[in-house]
């Protein structure tokens, strides 16, 4: 009698415990990532660079190599700029800049990489919330009354910024940019062109399943002019008068040198 009771209680406990443990520690997916280089130096031979963002999905529930359960989206955002978008119109036969719209907080660089088209991954609300995709970049128009950017003339100026930045290689959207290596390991390669703006960059990596963001991981990247380029650039902007005087001295010396070298009497 006693033994049977104890056995029953133990069995009950075991069942409860196993049920509890399943409830208490559900497997949560997490994303971890990093960038191939955290500091990029722009020197006189800089013609652009490729960087690799790689990472892994922890506690993945995916059992086989077939993709589909998860989506990884990578967004790399450069330093904020105040950008003026200008439209030309014809005046007396000549095309001149007429209307303009200024946008604050425009990323100087924006690269978005995913495994498939953004619209197939999640809805617009989520894209906007995380600033994913060109349409969701939070440009702040200055001096405009409404913030509804998709409507009216403002949208035209906004689209122009995206279009021109895309042409310059500074805005990138690659829906085939995420490559899975094995079951949980992924990598994404992105181009930083020669005209990439200097400053602090953030690489955000998002893990999504069925349209919901499960996990987010951020790593940082600094792009800076180095060596002679940095020296010239900071001199020009921090000590502009001295820079100008030195520029003239260099030119005068070059002129004197040239006439000394080429003089033959």
């Amino acid at each position, binding site marked *: 009698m006693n033994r049977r009771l104890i056995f029953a209680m133990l069995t009950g406990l075991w069942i409860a415990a196993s049920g509890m443990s399943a409830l208490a520690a559900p497997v949560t997916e997490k994303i971890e990532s990093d960038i191939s280089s955290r500091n990029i130096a*722009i*020197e*006189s*031979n*800089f*013609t*652009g660079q490729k960087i690799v963002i790689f990472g892994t999905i922890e506690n993945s529930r995916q059992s086989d190599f077939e993709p589909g359960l998860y989506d990884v989206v990578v967004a790399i955002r450069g330093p904020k*700029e*105040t*950008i*003026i*978008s*200008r*439209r*030309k*119109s*014809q005046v007396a*036969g*000549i*095309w*001149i*800049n007429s209307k*303009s719209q*200024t946008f604050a907080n425009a990323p100087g660089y924006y690269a978005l990489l995913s495994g498939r088209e953004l619209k197939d991954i999640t809805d617009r609300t989520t894209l906007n919330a995380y600033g994913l995709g060109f349409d969701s970049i939070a440009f702040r128009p200055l001096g405009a009354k409404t913030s509804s950017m998709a409507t009216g003339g403002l949208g*035209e*100026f906004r689209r*122009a*910024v995206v*279009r*021109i*930045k895309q042409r310059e290689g500074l805005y990138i959207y690659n829906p085939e940019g995420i490559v899975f290596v094995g079951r949980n390991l992924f990598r994404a390669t992105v181009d930083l062109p*020669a*005209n990439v703006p200097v400053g602090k960059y953030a690489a955000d990596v998002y893990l999504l399943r069925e349209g919901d963001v499960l996990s987010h991981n951020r790593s940082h990247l600094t792009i800076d*002019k180095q060596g*002679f*380029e*940095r020296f*010239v*650039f900071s001199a*020009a*902007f921090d000590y*502009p*008068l001295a*820079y*100008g*005087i*030195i*520029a*003239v001295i*260099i*030119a*005068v010396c*070059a*002129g*004197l040198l*040239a*006439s000394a*070298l*080429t*003089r033959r009497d």
Partner: protein
Amino acid sequence: MFEIYLPIAEMSVNLLVLLGMGGAVGFLSGMFGVGGGFLMTPLLIFSGIPPAVAIATEANQIVASSVSGALAQWRRGNVDIKMGTVLLVGGMTGAVVGVQFVKLLRQTGQIDLIISLSYVTFLGIIGSLMLIESLRAIRRAKAGNPVSMRRPGQHNWIHGMPLKMRFKRSKLYISAIPPLLIGTFVGLLAAIMGVGGGFIMVPAMIYLLRVPTSVVIGTSLFQIIFVTAMVTILHSATNQTVDVLLAVVLMVGGVIGAQFGARAGQHLKGEQLRALLALMVLGVCLRLLFDLVVEPDELFSIGRAIGGH
């Protein structure tokens, strides 16, 4: 391989292309004895350098080329310091006003337009005049008549103005107002177009001031040194648009090119060369005009807000 990154223009360009451009323009300036700024600045703009950086940097390069040019003239005693000083007082004034004007144009987004329009106007006028003059000379040479320059007359309206000064080297006793005004105008052009302004200064001195031709080039180069130096410093202080690296590369190319140009110029016929230069000037003018008149593929342009650096 030979790409270099220009720190102020913020772009990567091919070093050999830049040297080649500097060399080609230097060759022409050596051959014709012209400054070359009016060809170099459009070339820089065509190759994608922001126009504001192109004009400021070109002013810096002209300092170098005019120093070596003026020195050669100085050794031959062809510089009228007093006349040059009066011209450059005006030139400094023009430079100050011009650089402020450029700053204003940059803020309102019209700088590219004004630079292009200035070039179309001046290249158009000068190219046409040169072409007409050289074609006439060629025709005259064919007819067998000797090529003669029109001698400037003795008096004109300028001699009636007050503030008269004696310019010994130029053997002139004229009012200081016309050289001041000419200097101011050329200083303005130097600041807006990134040129030395010899193409205005030289004819103005010959035909308006009646300065003897022997001292014209030397005196013009003398004041160009100081005006372009001033323009360089002011552009740097006001607009931060002088790219020293670009300027140095252009200087190197220019010096080398000028040597070959000067030698080549000695063996070739003047009229044909002038006609050729005129055609080149007109070609650059038409290209700039074309870009202004034809509807661009992209109506929009973007730029970083000035002052937000």
